[in-house]
């Protein structure tokens, strides 16, 4: 037992004297957090559009004004003809072209219905669908305005959004990014560290001592576990100060879950270190594996949108569960009862992963 203390103490000294590692823990994650949170958004703002008004009536101009006022669009130009608009679409300078037909007002007055053509540049990304839905809403809102006071039968629909009333994308992304950072620290640093010891030969020296592999692993992982939790704290502070992320649930609960999650992340790092021989391999393999986990975690894009088999596969992805829990606690104010299922998975993973990693570690080569 004392052995763990002595080795862990030495590890802490190593860490404190390792400037590269301190940079990896303090600087890189903060930079990543700042850039990621600002860049990773699907919000639609200032989408450049062209309008082609073939009607030129007050009604059609009203529609264009509504589009401009919505805040989502930036009218780059109003072309009198379709050709110019198409050019712009082809050249990629606009995302959407709105074409109002020449009988717009007349149709509305006569039949109450009129079409408006929306041509979207779908190459720009998933934003095309979102742009379309925003545009449709503007159209629908304008139509409602034009409608008489009471149309019957009428259904009065009220909408309410839960958990992210300001529709702030960063509030959605930051908890997930924190998870990613903590994972990187936990897995990459562990894998790198032990692979380095292997490469330098310092591991051998420890293998000749009577220290058991259990003691060795605990002493090795403990400092990184603490670092991971420190990382989470740092991330939360930055998230609060810079992005004002919500913290509706219990932060201690989050840390409790994080403690278990880190055990999984560290275990994976340990497992990776056992199957590589050099630092370089450790870095490549870790990067490769973490990449897979992150993409399938629902961090960037919702799990519900994933193909069915990926969704099923992600059930065994610990990152996914921690992302779910982090969002549930921070944004939804969820308590222990609501996160039981994903937490249980994390707890089981921790046991399994650590057991496998410990078993895999051999002091004596066969």
């Amino acid at each position, binding site marked *: 037992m*004392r*052995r763990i*203390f*002595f*080795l862990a*103490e*030495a590890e802490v*000294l*190593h860490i404190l*004297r*390792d400037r590269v590692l301190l940079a990896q823990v303090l600087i890189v994650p903060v930079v990543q957090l700042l850039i990621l949170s600002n860049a990773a958004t699907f919000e639609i703002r200032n989408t450049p559009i062209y309008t082609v008004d073939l009607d030129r009536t007050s009604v059609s101009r009203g529609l264009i004004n509504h589009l401009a006022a919505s805040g989502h669009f930036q009218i780059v130009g109003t072309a009198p003809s379709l050709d110019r608009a198409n050019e712009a679409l082809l050249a990629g300078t606009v995302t959407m072209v709105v074409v109002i037909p020449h009988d717009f007002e007349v149709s509305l007055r006569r039949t109450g219905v009129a079409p408006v053509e929306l041509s979207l540049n779908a190459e720009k990304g998933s934003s095309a669908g979102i742009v379309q839905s925003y545009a449709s809403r503007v159209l629908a809102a304008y139509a409602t305005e034009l409608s008489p006071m009471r149309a019957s039968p009428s259904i009065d629909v009220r909408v309410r959004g839960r958990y992210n009333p300001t529709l702030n994308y960063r509030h959605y992304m930051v908890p997930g990014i924190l998870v990613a950072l903590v994972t990187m620290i936990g897995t990459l640093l562990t894998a790198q560290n032990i692979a380095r010891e*292997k*490469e*330098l*030969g*310092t591991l*051998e*020296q*420890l*293998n*000749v*001592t*009577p*220290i*058991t592999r259990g003691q060795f692993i605990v002493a090795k992982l403990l400092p990184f576990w603490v670092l991971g939790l420190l990382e989470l704290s740092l991330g939360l502070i930055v998230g609060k100060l810079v992005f004002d992320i919500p913290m509706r649930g219990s932060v201690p609960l989050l840390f409790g879950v994080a403690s278990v999650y880190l055990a999984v992340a560290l275990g994976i790092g340990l497992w990776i270190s056992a199957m590589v*021989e*050099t630092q370089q391999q450790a870095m490549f393999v870790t990067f490769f594996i973490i990449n897979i986990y992150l993409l399938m975690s629902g961090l960037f894009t919702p799990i519900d949108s994933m193909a069915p088999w990926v969704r099923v596969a992600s059930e065994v992805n610990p990152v996914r569960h921690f992302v779910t829990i982090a969002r549930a606690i921070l944004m939804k104010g969820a308590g222990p009862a609501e996160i039981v299922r994903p937490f249980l998975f994390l707890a089981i993973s921790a046991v399994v992963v650590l057991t496998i990693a410990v078993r895999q570690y051999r*002091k*004596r*080569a*066969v």
Partner: protein
Amino acid sequence: MTDIAIEAKDLTRTFGSFTAVDHISFEVRTGEVFGFLGANGAGKTTAMRMLIGLLAPSSGTARVAGHDVYTESEAIKRSIGYMSQRFSLYEDLTPRENIRLYGGIYGLTRQQIRERTDRMLARLGLAGVADEQVRSLPLGWRQKLAFSVALVHDPRIVFLDEPTSGVDPITRRQFWELIYEAASAGTTVLVTTHYMDEAEYCDRISIMVAGRIGAIGTPADLKKQFGVDSIDELFVRLARPAEKRIPDPGSPIPDPYFPSDTKP
């Protein structure tokens, strides 16, 4: 029985079709300074790794400090010390911190650690640099310190793998003084080296050639037996025919790309 510290009988290690250590048999008595000589690739490092519990033997038997290397390798580790050639001390820790770490791992009390630290540093004249990182110390001092650290827990046997490589002759001499001190205190020393002049310092030596023991005995006896004036000559005579052999993958010179490759 207790005056045999190390014994091996037909100890063998193969890697696939390659035999690194080929049925070697020898004994080392308690308190002896035993020199384990051989060319790079002859198999001496592999043999040592089997004795200290880093590598499992393929066949044959061996006992170290009275324990069987197959079934009691962890017990062996409590009774031995080791100084590897590639690494001895953590460079970013101070001598004091290094001693404390290993002392703690071997179960010494804080009191004991403190006492031995002071004693060790005084003996080596390192009291002045006790709190400077090891990386700032010259190689010779590091090696001497590493040796002392390997003995911090008073092991019965200490294994040294090429401890004087790259060190100047004066330091080498000082190092051997330390070895003699340990031996006269009752510690058995098994040291591998390819400096043939150091062979003369040992009580007995063995010379490994192509995985086998080509010669074993006291330096004086061997010189007489083979009719040579120096161990160097003896070594050349034994080693020449085996020159064409594939290098021992357990050799201490690491492949920079695959450092812990133990397979050829």
